[in-house]
């Protein structure tokens, strides 16, 4: 089967029957967007919540806001429609217990929240989520049926199916 690997701070778009996969998500968040009519999807692997921070610079694909808008534009170029899309996300863990950072929310939580805001702005429904906790995840996104598989050392393999399809 055709497996397309999405690296950290990047996104890829593919169509059925390909599988998009991204490995070793810690505090990073992977966002899978699927247009079931076109059987086309996009998967991104973001590192940071916002490109608007004081010191934020560099590759726009590492930030939730700029990466998602870039990926959406690209998907529309492939004939996808935002109003047909659904989203599934994974990652956003807190890998290390940092004693002096306990009070503030972790980078993983901030990444997840930023992704949710980007999805809400565009009214893209979030239909599955495997986030938080303190372990790493690998995410597979099967474009034949829109399934999201989340694989971890701790929890084995979990399948998130889109019941409506």
């Amino acid at each position: 089967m055709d497996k397309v690997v999405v690296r950290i701070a990047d996104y890829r778009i593919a169509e059925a029957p390909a599988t998009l996969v991204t490995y070793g998500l810690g505090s990073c968040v992977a966002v899978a967007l699927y247009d079931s009519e076109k059987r086309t999807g996009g998967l991104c692997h973001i590192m940071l919540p916002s490109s608007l921070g004081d010191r934020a610079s560099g590759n726009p694909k590492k930030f939730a806001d700029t990466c998602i808008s870039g990926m959406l534009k690209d998907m529309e170029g492939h004939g996808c429609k935002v109003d047909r899309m659904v989203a599934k996300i994974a990652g956003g863990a807190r890998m290390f217990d940092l004693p002096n950072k306990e009070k503030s929310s972790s980078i993983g939580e901030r990444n997840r929240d930023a992704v949710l805001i980007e999805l809400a702005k565009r009214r893209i429904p979030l239909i599955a989520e495997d986030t938080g906790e303190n372990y790493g995840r690998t995410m597979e996104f099967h474009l034949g049926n829109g399934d999201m598989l989340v694989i971890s050392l701790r929890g084995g393999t979990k399948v998130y199916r889109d019941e409506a399809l």
Partner: protein
Amino acid sequence: MKRLNENDLDFLRELSNIGVGHAATALSQLIGRQVGMRAPKVSIVDLSSVPELMGGSEKVVSGVYLQVLGDARGAILLVFPDDSSRALINLLLKRVDEPLSEMGASTLKEVGNILASAYLSVLGNMLGITLIPSIPSLAHDMVGAVVDIVLSDLGEIGDTAFVFETEFYDITNDIKGHFFLLPGPDSIDVIMRAIGSKNG
């Protein structure tokens, strides 16, 4: 951020050489076996390539993370391949630790603490600045997930990381580890100023 030239990198490489030498001695004393080290690689790498640098995103490792506090900020991440971290624990606890127990986890954190403290005290002394490690924290997971923390810390302000990478090995060669020192963006300036004043 000031751009580093080849001379600066050489100087930092030499500093790290000495620092890591002390850390290796500390580790030898702890485990009661000779520990060697390879001369550190000092490099500037693309952040997104760091997981591959450590053997691929899904490889299972133990990572000990410490923040560097004091005059310069940064982070230290020690990465042990899974079998090496088991070997270290066996050696120190004199028993097999499977799955990783609370005691095994503390042992790895303590190893990280000793290595980081030895390294930072040498670096700090030579530069005439104070560098203190925070309490260590451990994650046993896929390397991609483990290194996320340093990537996002650094990623906020750029796409490259300044990495010191060293490999430890003991004589029977079943223990290996990578030592990553990731100076915060302002720390390079602090270090270069300290080097400047040392060199008169």
